[in-house]
């Protein structure tokens, strides 16, 4: 086979195969909308089934028919490497589990519409875009597609003031963050002349805008390229982009929206937000920031004299160090005093973003194998976090009896005596979230902290990284206290009255799947870890 020029051109730039999972999911969303309109009045379980089939097909395509090895397509707009594959799988799995959880939950909160399914699928599309996007524009579009779907999903509850409030709050703050992100992207474009991350690296670290940032030279009277100004533009752009991402992952000090929005949103959406949005945002964050750091390195290696951009890495490290520490600590301390389980999980999700940021800060500072290990650890952590957190939210949904009932901690009193399996599953999730072996959460945390500690031994940044690891484990202790609280209520307190907890098949299936994965990843993490590492290795450009 010797493809002709045009074929090669099409293959390189219009290879539809690279975005096949995306297309399948989007098509399923449209199909669901059509079906919703045509088969009115019937059970929505059918729609769930259709959506799940769509996601399943996409999952199979992603797992077994992914273009693989560093292939970029559509003029470098998307890059379907193992990294993208990993996060696409997370997005698809999170979407599937969310739909499973919602199947019996939506009628309870009187929001059983086909749009819900379509919006979840479209949000998954956004997440996939964030996973495969190799260009700031695609990433931005992905973020917006996902976010807008999430804004609406948050407010999908017909009768709940809280749900509407949550939706509006999320929308306003999210739009603000998006504006910052866009401004940051524009600044980076202005400074470098490209929005493409791969092109950024391939430029060899040259900092010329497409039209250039020019300043007037008083001595010669000419306009010349303003090297220093361009650097500051670039740094400012990086700062704004980080701000936008920090909002999406709910990092302190941009976390204020999280508890209210998480509490107000329908529980299955909350779970979806906590794992899906976060994972996708981390995917984009890692890809963009590793690119930026690499660009900074290249630039520094070209420079003859001192340039402000040389400090980028250290500044980023300092900033992310601080953000990670604050995120972990504030998240955990706030979770400590919650009495509403959903709100507690919201704060705990802030803390978990902090743990993942520990890995990111290591990845940004290191290079080579150590960077791969750190990125891989973050990826693995997000995968583990997806199962344990969605599982925990699944139990909260199962306990829900319309409105907000069943979310308070004392609603769990004595659950173990009348629903032992549900309680056992919840125990597994709580131990996993607290990072106690042999669960997925422990392995995830272990590799995050080992990345930090080994960064401390390898580099001359011992103080930064050891302190991160120590603050991290101290936070684990704090978190143990509040994760044990639901367990205490379930097992040690006798029930005043038994709540009706229905074991519906779809919901039970999703909790069962989560439990199995949490334990499987905890005991036999080898395969998952190697996939994560493969993904991390694929991130290298050039």
């Amino acid at each position, binding site marked *: 086979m010797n493809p002709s020029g045009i074929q090669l051109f099409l293959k390189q730039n219009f290879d539809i195969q690279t975005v096949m999972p995306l297309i399948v999911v*989007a098509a399923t969303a449209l199909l669901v909308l059509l079906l919703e309109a045509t088969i009115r009045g019937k059970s929505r379980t059918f729609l769930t089934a259709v959506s799940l089939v769509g996601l399943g097909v996409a999952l199979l395509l992603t797992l077994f028919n992914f273009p693989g090895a560093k292939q970029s397509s559509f003029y470098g707009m998307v890059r379907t490497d193992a990294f993208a594959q990993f996060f696409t799988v997370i997005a698809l799995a999170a979407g599937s589990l969310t739909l499973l959880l919602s199947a019996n939950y939506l009628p309870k909160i009187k929001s059983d519409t086909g749009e819900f399914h379509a919006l979840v699928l479209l949000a998954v599309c956004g997440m996939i875009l964030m996973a495969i996007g190799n260009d700031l524009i695609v990433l931005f579009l992905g973020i917006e597609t996902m976010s807008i779907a999430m804004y609406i999903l948050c407010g999908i509850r017909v009768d709940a003031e809280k749900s509407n409030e949550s939706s509006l709050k999320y929308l306003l703050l999210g739009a603000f963050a998006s504006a910052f992100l866009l401004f940051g992207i524009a600044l980076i474009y202005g400074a470098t002349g490209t929005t493409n991350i791969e092109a950024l690296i391939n430029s060899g670290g040259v900092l010329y805008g497409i039209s250039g940032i020019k300043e007037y030279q008083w001595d010669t009277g000419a306009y010349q390229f303003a090297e220093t100004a361009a650097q500051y533009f670039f740094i400012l752009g990086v700062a704004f982009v980080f701000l936008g991402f920090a909002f999406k992952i709910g990092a302190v000090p941009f976390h204020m929206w999280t508890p209210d929005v998480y509490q107000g949103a329908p529980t299955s959406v909350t779970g979806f937000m906590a794992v899906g949005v976060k994972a996708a945002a981390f995917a984009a964050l890692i890809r963009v920031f590793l690119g930026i750091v690499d660009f900074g390195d290249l630039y520094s290696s070209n420079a003859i004299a001192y340039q402000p951009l040389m400090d980028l890495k250290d500044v980023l490290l300092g900033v992310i160090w601080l953000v990670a520490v604050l995120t972990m600590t504030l998240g955990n301390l706030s979770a400590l005093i919650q009495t509403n389980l959903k709100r507690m999980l919201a704060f705990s999700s802030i803390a978990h973003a902090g743990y993942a940021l520990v890995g990111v800060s290591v990845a940004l500072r290191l290079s080579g194998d150590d960077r791969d290990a750190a990125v891989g650890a973050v990826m693995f952590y997000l995968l583990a976090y997806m199962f344990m957190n969605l599982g925990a939210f699944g139990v909260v949904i199962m306990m829900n009896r319309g409105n907000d009932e069943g979310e308070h901690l004392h609603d769990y009193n004595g659950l173990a005596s009348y629903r032992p399996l549900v309680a056992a599953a919840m125990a597994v999730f709580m131990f996993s979230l607290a990072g106690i072996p042999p669960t997925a959460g422990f392995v995830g945390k272990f590799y995050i902290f080992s990345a930090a500690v080994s960064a401390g031994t390898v580099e001359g940044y011992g103080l930064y990284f050891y302190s991160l690891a120590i603050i991290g484990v101290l936070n684990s202790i704090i978190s143990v206290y509040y994760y044990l609280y639901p367990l205490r209520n379930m097992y040690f307190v006798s029930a005043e009255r038994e709540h009706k907890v229905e074991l519906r098949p779809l919901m039970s299936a999703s909790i069962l799947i989560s439990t199995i994965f949490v334990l499987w990843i905890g005991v036999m993490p080898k395969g998952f870890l190697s996939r994560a590492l493969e993904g991390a290795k694929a991130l290298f450009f050039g």
Partner: protein
Amino acid sequence: MISLESYIPALAFLAEAAADAVKTGASEMNFGAGDFFFYLFAVIAVFSAFMVVTAESPISSALFLVVTFFAMAAIYALLSAHFLAVIQVLVYAGAIMVLFLFVIMLLDLRKEELIEKRHWLLGAVGFVVGIALVVLMVASFRLSQNVEVAVKSGTDQEAPDAAKFPAIQESADQIDGSRIEAARFGTTRRVSKHLFREYLFPFEVASLLLLVGIIGVVVISRRRRRRRPPGEVIDEEGAS
């Protein structure tokens, strides 16, 4: 019906001004016409954006937003982004603003407040629209054959026939290729070329984004209908 062509003269003028700016920048002049227009529109944009936020009446906010959009469009044109400038005017200043105004009218606002502001408001609107008209007028006065050709060459042909269009020949002699390049940069042809080649994927993805928005509107509006008793809906329709 406003058509694309009706904006072309003004935009072409602005493009010319931008090209002037490049030229004067290269020469000894420090503060060229391009700079002047840029600062003018930038100040207008920022000021009216500020007013959008601070204005008490929503209508005046909306109208200040129109001004901002116009000023932005002018800046785009200064940057040789003609197509974008047109789209900015058409979509934002046109379609979206109409929607905004509709929404504001549909909302239950107290009339006294609006009346109170009307006089001053009208003055401001008149002022802004006046400026916009002045710009258009000046532009149409400056309309000369070479502008038309420049636009044509940018939109229709890659390399204009020099013999057919002496003005281009002349300008090509006077200025270097980069100026022509700059003038062509934001033409419809160029934009569409980029849009359907390099940016095909984001372009298609944007449709997904719009779809999400549409579904969102359906979800939210449907809820509104469900929540309110039927009588109220009729009232609302009558009011509009």
